[in-house]
């Protein structure tokens, strides 16, 4: 019998034009334990190929702090993908 695959659950948030494109503001996804923020974005690109062209104009955050793309995911993380900000 194979051991159960190690997965963690993370919450994912989309804003602005990304929310419109993905069609979701909030998602929960089970992901492999050794994955990064970049791979998480990649999973959504796989579902919605048009997302790929926004990759260079998106910043990620982990638990309300801006995060590098190679930041590892942890169980219970809140990851957000943020398009260029336009408050004010």
């Amino acid at each position, binding site marked *: 019998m194979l051991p159960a695959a190690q997965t963690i659950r993370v919450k994912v948030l989309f*804003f602005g034009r990304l929310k419109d494109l993905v069609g979701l503001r909030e998602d929960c996804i089970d992901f492999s334990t050794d994955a990064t923020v970049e791979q998480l974005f990649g999973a959504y690109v796989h579902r919605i190929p048009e997302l790929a062209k926004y990759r260079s104009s998106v*910043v*990620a955050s982990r638990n309300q702090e801006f995060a*590098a793309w*190679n930041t590892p995911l942890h169980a219970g993380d809140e990851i957000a993908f943020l*398009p*260029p*900000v*336009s*408050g004010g």
Partner: protein
Amino acid sequence: MTPSAHDDLYQLLRDPIDIAALVSHVRAPGDGAIVTFDGFVRDHSHGRRTLYLDYEAYESMALAKIHEIGATLHEKFPIHRAAIVHRLGRLQIGETSVFIAVSAPHRPAAFDACRYAIDTLKRTVPIWKKEYFEDGAVWADGELPPAPAATPAAKPAS
């Protein structure tokens, strides 16, 4: 309402911003100057007539980033108090979307801090506006916040 150690005021609001209340909040007898910034909805964008704007925010992070800006103001400038308020939801032409008031004993610090606050807010606080025109709507062009570069040693904050 989120009071801080300095009795500053940082808020995200869905109702109209009460400018007079914010100015009086930062005003104290030891001060000699208040500088304010009033950002309000323009009636045009890129040559098109704007009907209204709709603001959305990643609210928990936006409020945290506004707090960070406030803390930085006190580190960098000899000011007394700051109020930074941003409105969300649908805003009509002429309505205030962001208001900043900074008090200080002397005007240079108040001017510098107010300018720093609005410039930093526009670059780093996760808020977005959608512009509605007669023939459609677009997300406004924005600024990409500075994020940590990916490095092999990057570790998440604990």
